[in-house]
């Protein structure tokens, strides 16, 4: 009987795809050759990584609302000197709420940290202790000062709904190192999802398996992992057994059928996921000193600590991309995010208290396990905050408005120059002036560390070979350790 096992997609290769961690891009190529996905991507990209990767996995701490760079990672003595004075130019800043008050110095003292002497403020005392492992970009600039477009932009390279996020692109290009866990896992803030909700970890136009999978607490850490309504003991295994037997029976009776083989395989992987997800989600077996390191034992930090620890466990087991959100719904009073319009001191104190120790512990823990060598930690925010306060023109208010012209993010780990800060804003931290970095550049660099040429990771959608970096992006070589 004619079958396709003699075709370029031979049955053995097909069955091996997930165990070899082959990227989905390559799988689509295989399926395409096999004639399964007739309407799939017309021009599948070449295999990834394109060149040896420095990073194999990443964990992204995503700050909702806009962290004040002026109060954290961008030390501006000139701003302190000009405290209480107006913006030293004739410029009429185009900012979100339109109110331009007087300049305000940082609410926290800065000092140089570690061997590297990196400037970090007292807002993040724990993270500051990891300064020698951080690579700060002090010259970020973005295109929107509006929360949701800015957040979408940081995550997907576009300001609109419907574009795949970084984690989805990595999943598409590189696949997973494990077949027992999702490739891209999302851990939202316990206070609620970020603005834009699930659109932030959407696969966009990429195939569905590349979307972020939310990992919850409780008996159902991943949706539908176990039967939603209780079933008789062992029924599950019997049902799965019958499905498998009938599907295999069909396979034996008929010609080779790649689609059917893929389906049989998907049920095997589902069973593995049922075993591995609860195992990874259960942090109770972690030793006491590790739990304490993350702050799992303290009320202020416990929630974020659990997620950071979970993040490390997921990475250890081969998950490609973990995303941890710091901040929930954007509006409201009191704020549940970094959106410090009213009072930076109060707001940032409260938010930092939740994440400082857990995030620092994550970096330290990855490092002591030797994982930081091929793991990236990303610490980003939507935009920065203004050096002048959001108040009447003749007042020094307590809050700061959104600043898209200049802000700071940091990275740590694989392939980066540690204990180093790149670029700078102007003297008062209003705009990036030296080596400005866009999200396009940031994403190009990130993909580069994963061994991916950002111009080659593409997916055709409605007339355009879409990229994470649109038609832009330059690798920021200055961040790299070589």
């Amino acid at each position: 009987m004619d079958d396709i096992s003699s075709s370029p997609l031979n049955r053995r290769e097909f069955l091996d795809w997930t165990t070899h961690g082959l990227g989905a891009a390559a799988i689509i190529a295989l399926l395409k050759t096999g004639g399964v996905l007739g309407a799939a991507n017309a021009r599948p990209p070449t295999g990834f990584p394109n060149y040896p990767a420095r990073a194999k996995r990443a964990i992204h701490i995503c700050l909702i609302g806009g962290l004040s760079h002026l109060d954290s990672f961008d030390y501006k003595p000139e701003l302190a000197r000009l405290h209480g004075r107006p913006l030293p130019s004739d410029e009429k800043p185009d900012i979100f709420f339109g109110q331009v008050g007087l300049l305000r110095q940082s609410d926290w003292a800065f000092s140089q940290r570690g061997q590297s002497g990196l400037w970090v403020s007292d807002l993040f005392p724990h993270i500051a202790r990891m300064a020698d492992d951080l690579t700060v970009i002090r010259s970020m600039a973005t295109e929107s000062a509006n929360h949701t477009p800015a957040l979408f932009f940081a995550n997907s390279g576009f300001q609109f709904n419907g574009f795949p996020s970084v984690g989805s692109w990595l999943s598409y290009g590189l696949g997973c190192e494990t077949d027992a866990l999702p490739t891209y896992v999302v851990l939202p803030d316990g206070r609620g999802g970020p603005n834009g909700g699930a659109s932030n970890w959407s696969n966009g136009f990429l195939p569905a398996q590349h979307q972020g999978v939310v990992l919850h607490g409780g008996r159902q850490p991943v949706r539908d992992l176990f039967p939603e309504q209780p079933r008789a003991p062992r029924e599950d295994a019997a049902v799965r057994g019958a499905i498998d037997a009938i599907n295999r029976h069909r396979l034996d009776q008929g010609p080779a059928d790649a689609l059917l083989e893929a389906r049989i395989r998907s049920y095997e992987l589902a069973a593995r996921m049922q075993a591995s997800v609860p195992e990874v989600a259960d942090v109770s077996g972690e030793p006491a000193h590790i739990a304490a390191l993350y702050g799992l034992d303290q009320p202020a930090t416990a929630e974020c600590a659990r997620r950071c620890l979970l993040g490390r466990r997921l990475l250890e087991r081969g998950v490609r991309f973990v995303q941890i959100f710091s901040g929930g719904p954007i509006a409201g009073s009191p704020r549940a995010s970094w959106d410090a319009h009213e009072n930076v001191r109060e707001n940032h104190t409260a938010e930092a208290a939740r994440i400082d120790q857990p995030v620092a512990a994550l970096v330290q823990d990855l490092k002591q396990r030797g994982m930081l060598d091929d793991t990236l930690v990303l610490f980003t925010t939507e935009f920065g905050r203004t050096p002048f306060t959001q108040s009447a023109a003749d007042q020094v208010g307590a809050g700061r408005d959104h600043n898209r012209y200049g802000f700071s993010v940091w990275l740590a780990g694989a392939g980066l120059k540690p204990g180093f800060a790149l670029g700078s804003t102007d003297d008062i931290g209003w705009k990036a002036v030296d080596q400005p970095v866009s999200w396009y550049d940031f994403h190009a660099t990130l993909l580069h560390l994963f061994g991916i040429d950002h111009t080659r990771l593409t997916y055709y959608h409605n007339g355009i070979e879409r990229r994470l970096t649109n038609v832009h992006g330059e690798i920021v070589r200055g961040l790299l350790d070589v």
Partner: protein
Amino acid sequence: MNRCTWVLLICGLAPRAHAGDNSPAPIDVRHFDRVIAPLLAARCLDCHSSQAAKGGLDLSRRERALRGGDSGPAIVAGNPGESLLCERIDAGEMPPKHPLEPAERQTLKSWIAAGAPWGADPIDRFRYTTASRAGYDWWSLQPLAAVRPPAVHDTAWPRNDVDRFILHRLEERGLTPAAAADPRTLVRRLYHDLIGLPPTPEEVAGFTAAPSQAAYERLVDGLLGSPQYGERWGRHWLDVVRFGESDGFERNEPRKRFWHYRDWVINSLNADMPYDRFVKLQLAGDLLLPGPAGAAAAGFLVAGVHNTVVGSSERMIRLARQDELEEIAAVVGQSFLGLTVNCARCHDHKFDPIPTTDYYRLISTLDGVNFGEREVIDPDSAAELAQVNRQIGQIQESLRAIDLPARQALRAERKLRDDSKPASNRVQPFAAWEFETDLRDAVGALHGTAHGGAHIADGALVLDGRGAFVQTAPLDRRLEQKTLEAWVALENVAQRGGGVIGVETNDGVVFDAIVFGEREPRHWMAGSDNFVRTKPFQGREESSRAAEPVHVAIVYRDDGTIAGYRNGAALGQPYQTGFMPFAAGAAHVVFGMRHAPAGGNKMLQGRILRGRLYDRPLTAEEIAASATTTDEHLADDVVFQSLPPEVKSRRAELDANLKSATEHRDRLDARSKHRMYTIVPGQPPVMRVHVRGGVTDLGNVAPPGGIAAIVGLSPEFGLAPDAPEAARRLRLADWVTNPANPLFARVMVNRVWHYHFGAGLVETPNDFGFNGARPSHPDLLDWLAASFRADGFRLKSLHRLIVTSAAYRQASSSNRRAFEIDAGNRLLWRFTPRRIEGETLRDAILKVAGALNPAAGGPGFEDVTITPNNGTTYYEAFDPAGPQFERRTIYRFTPRGGRSAVLDSFDCPDPATAAPRRSTTTTPLQALSLLNNSFILRMADRFAARVAADSGADRAAQVRRAWQLAVCRAPDAEEERLSLKLAEDYGLSALCRALFNLHEFVVVD
């Protein structure tokens, strides 16, 4: 187009730039146009054309090319060696990133050596297709070719002309089609394809017993005639037009009244509305067809995302508007023309011959599109309604003539109203509503209209806190600084977020309003869009007896200062934020609602005694003075008792008349008024080219018009740049659907083909441009398009033609030889098996379980929780039980980001962007959903109960029945054995759960 050209294009070579090499053809003017101009256009003119050319070198005109740029003459005719151009290209310096191939260099040198003869001047970059972009000669832009079905060797196979095209290509490659599918496979395929539901065992048996050609045709006609056809194919269309029932972006508010569009699509498809009519109504239905159907159709224009948080500056607002227009232009261009016109917003299209000017001409036709809800009246009832309203108006006028003097007399008598103040102390309001007897503006023309049960009683506007509000006519003058003022009696002080009086833009997106208790309980605040101009006044809590009226005023100054007052005294502290003027015609006043659309926590519960709007900031003294005019309420009954007896009886009579007329009106209203989310048209400004897509650098005026590149179709609309909005969209609708527009028919027949076969003749249904795929059967595509057009754009005829073809009726069995030649089955040597879509899967499960509720139309069922939380709306999937949730999936409420596990894992796209084709994945998460999802388990139980009811207690009979229902066939011996074992060990429900998970259940072959 002749076959030769097709072959060239299909191979993607388009090598005209090379064609001159070694060719005996003379190097003349013609050679220039065919060879040199395309080469220059493709490789040089992106930088070296127009006034702003790099290095001052403009190679688009002969005279300038010879003159050269900053470095001197570029071309010395007859002497390549002296030509700077040749020097640069030989050095590989130009073009900078991708130097010319040696052959291309030689071509240019030969041309210069031959004296550089020049043809069309200036070079039109879009004229010819090159290796890197499409020109006006691009295949899809050409008129439909007159094609005859080709001759074939095997004359027995074709069942209709479609098959001749297919077989011809197969025979060319030495391939033969697969055998015909067996009747059971065919009937199952047809049901899934045409109505998106599996057949019942009885329906299968009915056909397989006598599967004649006539029986098949009857089956096809029956399915096309069933209402489920529109539900199936309507879903496809909703994918294309990115239909979603929430705004997207930050607020992502639900659109609870947008189902009208979905229903209109389903009904139109069921009625076999000609496709040109179908499209015209979507572009201009509100203009072409007054009433709910036309307005619902035009919902197409606003089916996409809408950012309602746009920032405070003019630049941000204008940029957001341009983003909105790009989104609409994209869906218009891609859905109807297969052209990605949106790619020409910031620069000329990189791949297709669409200049930026054309893009702005197109969006000029769409710039009147705004998002919002409208109340639409059935035209049949409109006259009657108007008549009843006139009658009600007359009665109210008579009542007013009685009541007003009586009320004034009573007030004077009781000295409740302080009329003794000299007039000079009084400030003339911009508008004033007394709400004594009606909703009229006592000063100007901002008369109110009641909505949702708002009414006047006891000399006050009564609001129920649910849907009642009053909206006035649009502002007749621009409003800058202002004061809002109202006397209001709250029904209770626990309510959170209702608006008393406010000014809002017509779409409800931008507003300033007096709002109670939204952010802080019991506190008044100056409500505004996204709290942009809102801060706490830090004033006193409202703890007074609920029904006692208070006087509230908020003053807005143009320096951004906002001050609140309560009963004439300052309410906490003024603060400074931004300032928002409201344009004449673009905004109106609302009472009882924070801002449109109505619903949620935006509605006030209480009575408004009087409202005033001033076009200036009142001083504290003026407000204090105004506050003292607060009066107690004169109950209607008190007024009535004061009337002389004869007037009393007259009034009672009028009252009775009013009651019956109002009841009549309400009945008519309920029948004929439809509130829906759709286009809210507005007169747009003159459109200009936005240089590089920004909003600060504006170029030439772009009068309304179409895309010039479509051959045989004029882009001129004959409209002035300031033409009325309606004229613009009507002309656009005519232009898009013009029979001379070849793309219109090509794109749609390809879509239909795509859904029938799993892949289009062009594999990129939304892109017929350079970046899209080339047609696998160009002749067939044109033949189908021409037939479709000749047939009056009837979709059902097109379906019939396709599904009765032998090509469609092939088996899905594979064939080694064919597989080696054409693994992707582009030539259709078999039917490609397909996994069914998420919606079809869910519908099939409902039907097989015997749970499917066939109720059609109306508001969608909600299997997501909707949680507004501080400015963002969250949607969380859950599994509600009950027949109202067991309707077909097309009736599911589909907010953006509100995805359900089963649909999601089966590749149901989020409606953030158009999904003209879906991906098909097979993942462990999909397996988990189908195994464990609450809905699946519930349906497995239902399925089991149904099977038990159908076939009694005999296990074997149950197993066979379950198989028949699930996959339209009996199990074989092994399958029966495995099934029996499972059912015996764990019950029938376990077997039903397994059957839903079978490969065969989720695949149609």
